[in-house]
């Protein structure tokens, strides 16, 4: 029993957190956000089956998410209007997953012959085709309005009506946990390992006797299954599916979540989904420039790290496991480096905010609220102030990054020294 808890401690903890969360965050806003996070965790993990584990960069994976969402909405409507037999709402995500799987098998077959750029282009082609079709096939997609649905159909066992958001919260988090566990187990199977091998060295995989096409195809189909499951949850959550769920924007969102969170380890996409959804629902009201910051964050991560934010955390794992006292020497350089980054960011963000304010205002008003202060964006003073923060901040970054990297390298060298006999 103790061994079981130790081995599966993470899952038990996740289950406990899932049960407790709605008691901590009781507002409707928080529950809505948690629901969204749950859906997007499944979707970004599914996306990472392709990108992180299979080495396939897709610009069109939202296709399976969105299509499954549309089918789920129509299915619910069909049950509600009595031209389809009753099917438990709780099990609808499986239906969505099967829809995703169906399309994933078909489209995957033609698009997984090659990975890399070719795969990315084909996925973009299919995504654009589907986006265009949403505006043509009006009966099924209903154009830009999308499909409305009602999740309260059929009998209500144990009083579960799926009316209140909290019922949907437990539905989503249950499926989120199940799907996450399933995808984690998949990474441990021979298939999961072969998928990694195809990512790293396809030529050698072919020599060993496997078909890279088959492995990619299987990975693609399974990933589409989970994307479809997430799409069904999305439809149940919002009771609406719009054409934007199918297109490049949704795929790009998953890509951002996965890459910012970190594609190289399993928790990265989860972290990314939580972080970006949280920031998105809180920051997009405060600043118009939120998407710009998101894009810049993404580019910075692409340029400087391959493992995303979780990669940055996990690269300290050997130090932690060997001797946490090694962190002592790293504290000061890290604090200086992070501090100067924050200073530089404050200055740059101030300027972006003022530009946005000046270009998007509708009146002649020039008084903007910046960092809880009222400033006159048309006068020179706030600009000079921002520049006066940015310039030393950037200069400090240039001075403090090398010692930061040095302290890390020294700590790793110390770890290696201790491991040597």
């Amino acid at each position, binding site marked *: 029993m103790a061994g079981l808890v130790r081995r599966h401690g993470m899952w038990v903890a996740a289950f406990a957190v899932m049960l407790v969360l709605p008691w901590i965050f009781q507002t409707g806003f928080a529950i809505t956000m948690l629901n969204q996070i749950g859906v997007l965790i499944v979707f970004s993990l599914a996306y990472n089956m392709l990108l992180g584990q299979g080495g396939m960069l897709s610009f069109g994976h939202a296709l399976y998410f969105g299509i499954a969402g549309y089918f789920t909405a129509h299915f619910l409507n069909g049950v509600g209007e009595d031209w389809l037999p009753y099917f438990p709402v709780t099990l609808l995500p499986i239906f969505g997953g099967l829809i995703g799987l169906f399309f994933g098998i078909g489209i995957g077959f033609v698009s997984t012959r090659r990975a890399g750029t070719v795969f990315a282009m084909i996925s*973009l*082609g299919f995504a654009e085709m589907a986006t265009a079709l949403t505006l043509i096939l009006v009966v099924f997609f209903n154009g830009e309005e999308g499909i409305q649905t009602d999740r309260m159909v059929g009998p209500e066992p144990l009083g579960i009506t799926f009316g209140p958001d909290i019922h949907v919260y437990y539905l989503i988090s249950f499926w989120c946990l199940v799907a996450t566990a399933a995808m984690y187990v998949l990474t441990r199977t021979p298939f999961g390992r072969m998928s990694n091998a195809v990512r790293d060295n396809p030529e050698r995989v072919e020599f060993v006797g496997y078909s890279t096409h088959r492995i990619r195809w299987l990975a693609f189909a399974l990933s589409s299954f989970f994307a479809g499951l997430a799409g069904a949850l999305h439809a149940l959550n919002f009771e609406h599916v719009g054409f934007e769920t199918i297109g490049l924007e949704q795929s790009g969102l998953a890509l951002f979540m996965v890459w910012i969170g970190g594609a190289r380890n399993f928790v990265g996409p989860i972290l990314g989904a939580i972080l970006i959804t949280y920031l998105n629902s809180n920051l997009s009201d405060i600043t118009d420039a939120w998407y710009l910051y998101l894009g810049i964050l993404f580019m910075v991560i692409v340029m400087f790290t391959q493992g995303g934010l979780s990669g940055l955390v996990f690269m300290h794992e050997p130090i932690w496991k060997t001797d946490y006292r090694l962190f002592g020497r790293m504290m000061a350089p890290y604090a200086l480096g992070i501090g100067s980054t924050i200073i530089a960011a404050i200055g740059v963000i101030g300027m972006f905010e003022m530009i946005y304010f000046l*270009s998007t205002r509708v009146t002649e008003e020039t008084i903007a609220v910046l960092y809880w202060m009222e400033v006159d964006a048309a006068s020179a003073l706030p600009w000079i102030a921002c520049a006066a923060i940015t310039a030393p901040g950037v200069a400090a970054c240039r001075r403090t990054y090398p010692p930061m990297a040095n302290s890390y390298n020294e700590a790793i060298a110390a770890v290696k020294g201790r491991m040597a006999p």
Partner: protein
Amino acid sequence: MEVLVFSIFNGLLYGMLLFMLASGLTLIFSLMGVLNFAHASFFMLGAYFAYQISGFIGFWPGLVFAPLIVGVIGAAVERYGLRPVHKFGHVAELLFTFGLAFVIEEVVQMIWGKVPVPYDIPETMNVAAFTWRGLDYSAYRLFMLGASVAIFLALFVFIAKTRTGLIIQAALTHPNIVSSLGHDVGKIFMWTFGFGCALAGVAGVIGGNVLGTEPSMAITLGPIVFVVIVIGGLGSLWGALIAALFIGIMDNLSISYDLSLYPVLALFGVEREVEGIMQDLVNLTTAGLAPVLPYLFLVLMLILRPRGLFGTRDV
């Protein structure tokens, strides 16, 4: 008859614009292996810069300066953004350009707002060049066609006849040997990237006022340019030209003729008045299908002939 002639003419025009984007993209791709997702964003920047410059000093200086600025920005992006990412491989490079496209769109919205800007056709060109069977043809469109054909010819002469062009051609196939001959391949990459972006910028300057200058113009045109270079065959300028013209003309013909697809369905015994999902199929017309067709060709091409029309290697 006149519908046919005019839609072919407009198709040629659209095709030449596509070619201006596609030629830069295919050069960059075959030289560096980078599929520049942000290529159409440089097209958009060209249009916005031209709008800004033409507000100050007129259209013609804009035609010269806007592409130059775009080219310099492109070269800077290659030197300071893309080159550090190169060591992480092609997927990271593609991700970088994807992020760049996203950021450029946001910056454009930040500076010029979310609604289209009034970038208009220059006054002197806003007249009918000729009238044929009661249909006017604007002088500006004629100028667009002339300019794009001139650029196309200049590009071919540059690639085939100048020393720089020959080095680029050599670097396309044998980068290591070109490098060991003493040429600075890094510099070739940087200027080819800048040059490709400048070409996209020219397309933006002369096309932005007809197609509409707005923040979404990059994302609507970008994927079609990918289709063009894949159908034409990666690295092949002739292929890009033919694919661009093909897509341009097909797009215009399917919109101006707007045929219903019902007669085809009728062969299978489908009734005109059906309910439900089949209604979508009965109501299909070629104009409705026009946005789908390029991608349909892309997928068919990748399945049937992955190297494209004139490509020498599989994509």
